[in-house]
């Protein structure tokens, strides 16, 4: 087998490199810049162009990093390597590896809905497919992004009418930009937390065309109806005093469940995820044509059983230290 599942991560012995390893290795191919996939301490990194500046921001300006374009091919000791859009966040990639008669696709995190921000997900034919399963249950089926955004806007307007601001918890990388883009188009005034601003700067540097709203500062006058976007961890600090009074909402796939909405204690929850939902995961797996499917983080046992029994695939659970979108949003996938 071209890939083995080791305690450091997914290892390609033929090419002597790892994909998204969680312990230090000499050569790492990175699917995307979220902290649970792009760890510190590797000798050399290979990633997509757009991931470059964010990885330098988070892992250090001095890392040894090579970036490539989607579809661009690299040959490493006979292994053909290329990156393909995963639609998860800007720069996120599926890693395709071909050697002899095996074609592997390691998809990292992905979503199948076009969010208008990232290059949309592309299904890649392969013999072995590694898939996440963060929302791998039929409980999770996202409504179209525009419907969720319309509901969000309605909530923001009702807060504005009460003279309040809207504080939205969102991961700094990915979710934040997705919200900013939609709300900016709707003409809503936006302020962001420092970690979101820094991420925006890195993405602008990577050549992305995104709005760049200002940071919340201590003295500024904030008009009611302003949206403040920050990671959930900021919600517990006195930082939020600057834009009182406000209503609070979380934007996460977990908000699809009434129970988690209550647990997060946010006034409102909007089910908006950068991960594929049930229909997305199923469609993605089937579109690869792969007969061997390896299911990582999420509802892995249930999703692989479903693929075995309902689709006759050779599906199995693979342990990996990825967290995906955590139900505890302070646990960082992203920021």
């Amino acid at each position, binding site marked *: 087998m071209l890939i083995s599942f080791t305690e450091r991560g997914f290892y390609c012995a033929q090419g002597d490199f790892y994909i998204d390893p969680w312990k230090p290795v000499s050569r790492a191919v990175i699917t995307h810049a979220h902290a649970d996939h792009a760890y510190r301490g590797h000798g050399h990194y290979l990633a997509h162009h757009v991931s470059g500046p964010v990885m330098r921001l988070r892992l250090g300006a001095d890392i040894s990093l090579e970036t490539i374009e989607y579809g661009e091919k690299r040959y490493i000791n006979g292994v053909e390597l290329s990156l393909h859009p995963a639609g998860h966040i800007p720069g996120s990639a599926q890693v395709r590896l071909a050697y002899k008669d095996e074609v592997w696709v390691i998809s990292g995190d992905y979503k199948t809905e076009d969010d208008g921000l990232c290059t949309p997900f592309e299904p890649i034919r392969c013999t072995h497919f590694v898939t996440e399963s963060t929302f791998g*249950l039929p409980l*999770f089926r996202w409504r179209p992004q525009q419907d969720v955004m319309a509901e969000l806007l309605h909530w923001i307007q009702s807060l504005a009418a009460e003279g309040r601001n809207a504080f939205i918890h969102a991961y700094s990388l990915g979710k934040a930009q997705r919200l900013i883009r939609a709300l900016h188009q709707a003409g809503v005034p936006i302020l962001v937390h420092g970690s979101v601003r820094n991420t925006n700067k890195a993405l602008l540097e990577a050549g992305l065309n995104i709005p760049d709203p200002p940071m919340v500062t201590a003295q500024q006058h904030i008009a009611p109806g302003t949206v403040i976007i920050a990671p959930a961890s900021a919600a517990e600090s006195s930082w939020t005093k600057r834009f009182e009074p406000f209503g609070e909402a979380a934007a996460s796939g*977990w908000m*699809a469940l009434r129970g988690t909405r209550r647990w997060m204690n946010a*006034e409102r929850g909007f089910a908006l995820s950068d991960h594929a939902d049930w229909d997305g995961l199923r469609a993605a797996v089937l579109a690869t044509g792969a007969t061997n499917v390896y299911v990582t983080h999420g509802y892995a046992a*249930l999703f692989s059983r479903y693929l075995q029994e309902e689709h006759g695939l050779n599906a199995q659970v693979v342990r990996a230290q990825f967290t995906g979108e955590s*139900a505890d949003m302070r*646990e960082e996938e992203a920021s």
Partner: protein
Amino acid sequence: MKQFARLIAALDQTTSTTKKKDALVQYFREAPEADRVWTIALFTHRRPRRSVNTTLLRAWAGAEAGIPAWLVDECWHIAGDMSECLAALLPAGTNTCSMSLAECMDEIGSWKSRDTEEVREAVLGIWRGLERHERFVFNKLITGGFRVGVSQQLLVQSLARLLNLEDAVVSLRLAGNWSPQSTSWQELLHDERSDDARLYPFYLAYPLEQELSQLGTPEEWFVEWKWDGIRGQLVSRGAQVHLWSRGEELISAQFPELSQEAALAGLEAVIDGEILAWSEDKPLPFQALQTRLGRKQVSAAALKKAPVVLLAYDLLEWEGADIRNRPHQERRALLEALVQRVNHPVLRLSPLVSFESWQELKSLHAQSREQQAEGFMLKQRHAPYQTGRRKGSWWKWKTDPYTVDAVMIYAQRGHGRRAGLYTDFTFAVYDAQRNLVPFTKAYSGLSDDEFATINRWIKDHTIERFGPVCSVEAQLVFEIAFEGIGASKRHKSGVAVRFPRILRWRRDKTLAEINTLDDLRVLIGG
């Protein structure tokens, strides 16, 4: 359904009492009359009996959605709520159903007399016509267990505001036996009903939060033991005796020794008290009473094994008159006279604890467990009998819980509000051979930060996984609190605890320092 579903959404989306009240008032102003009566019935637990077998519902939803039965069950466990689970699994609906709440309830009521195939058609037809949130509400209506975060008090206050009535008046009118099928809005809220079973809203105590000295002088207070039974209101008007639970459910049938006792009939009185299993002049442990709860019919054996008494502590109606506004000491005097006159062993007086000083009361409090009580009730001598949970004239002063140190050995993924995280833990103590024996599960008591830290720890220290459960290395020690403990044949450990919860994470303790099964057995004796 649409209006009612919108109300449920509005109530669900806010934690503010004011906003909930606004939403309720607006709904009661706009909704059709029959829907309003049904809404009050649903919010006061006057639901009709579950009309559809839930196994069938899951099967129908699974078939409609093309999802295998085992996966429907897994989803149900993870969502923690079958209504929500099925609403999420079903394919998108047409959103064309225009049934009112009352029409919907009538439809549901008609299913009792129809065969399964007809009911299946009806359920699927309605599911297809609803959008997701309406389906959730509809599923709640057909499966029961309708909790929406509306307290009785909130409902009463909203109706009182709408109708410009006193809270207490509304409260009294909503109490007792009435059915939404046969009661109109006018009859329910505007007419004086003659109803011999009518109960008074219970007065509920708050936990004592201040120093005893802040209550004033000891002479101003009655103190009783806080009994570990269930609260009950005995209504004796005419020839009938009715017994109500704190949840305002009629429980007469469960306690025939009270409701069928001739000596308690015709008193023209309403008594508030505690129902306890009782033998040889003292209460039996709560476990004995438990064998009597929630049954339609009580067996002769159960009646013999766990006979009950009513320990009376207040008198709300006397000689047909509502005396709740009279001072407690007057009510108490009348109650004492009444109990004496009845002179029957099933009606006992909850004795007053005599004490000279707060200091003395404190030392008596330490003896609660020996008295088989959970602490004290403190009641202001001059206060009227109030409605609902209010601070001021009644306080409950509970004993400190039992605590033991135990080690976490299993973790289970939570469901409902904590889906996706490990939140349900199983704890073990040592037996005599130093083997770890699980003795309880506990869910609550940790902060969100602690949950997050422990979740990360679990990922690195899992030994084995089976379904949603994993076994973890026995390392993390927790202090577990519980209210009661008894011997149990059903549990491997031989003990069963009541209301277990995590008191704190003992990062300072190691596995070697946890308690033993013998330590637990000693507590049963005490």
